[in-house]
């Protein structure tokens, strides 16, 4: 499964980067979304895959005897998911406002407005 997920992550990265290289800001945003999924999945895969074993200590004070999924990458990814949601929302609003103010979604036309 490791290899399969690695290929999936690579594919997601390729799709995300391709979309972010577009001139259309809307596509850029979709690319950003794909890229954050890719990054989360990358962390998850790199942290080690354990099928179905939830990192919950079974009973008070007991030490989980079986190998469970690594909780640390999960905690990292949990925050990453929420943060990338906030970033995406901010970028969305920023682009929406840009379009509203400047009337174009073409990045090449947006490059000189601040000079």
């Amino acid at each position: 499964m490791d290899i399969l997920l690695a290929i999936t992550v690579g594919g997601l990265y390729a799709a995300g980067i391709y979309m972010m290289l577009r001139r259309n800001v809307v596509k850029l945003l979709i690319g950003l979304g794909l890229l954050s999924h890719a990054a989360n999945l990358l962390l998850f895969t790199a942290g080690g895959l354990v099928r179905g074993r939830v990192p919950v200590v079974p009973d008070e004070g007991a030490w989980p005897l079986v190998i469970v999924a690594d909780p640390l990458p999960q905690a990292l990814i949990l925050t990453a998911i929420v943060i990338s949601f906030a970033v995406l929302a901010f970028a969305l609003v920023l682009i929406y406002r840009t379009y509203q103010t400047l009337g174009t979604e073409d990045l090449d036309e947006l490059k000189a407005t601040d000079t």
Partner: protein
Amino acid sequence: MDSVILKTAIRFLLPLLLLASVFLFLRGHNEPGGGFVGGLLASGAIALYAMTHGAAAARQVVRVPPRILIGSGLLFALVSGVAPLFVGRPFLTGLWTTITTEGLGKLHIGTPLLFDLGVYCVVTGVTLVFVFSLLEE
């Protein structure tokens, strides 16, 4: 979205979803769940309500303005961080106490719970700001 079915369905779903979010939040320390997912579920439910009934109605349901939610959430988290300083422990150290109640048995209450409540409030508030701001455009 003027579908009557959807409107009605969501009016009934809203309390259930909110209840589920509180449940997820409360059990988070021992079972999957917690402040993040709880807050997201709550705001998701309100977002659905806002999309069908309008942002103004949704604001009525929440009562507390989202920015107050964000501020108080940060405050809760900070308080839970500062509290241990007063008993000579490092910043953000968990402080725990056990309360025995009728019916529920022994309950562990600690500052991490307050911290998680802060996370819950911030996440809810932030998402609601996103949703309301875009809806009210």
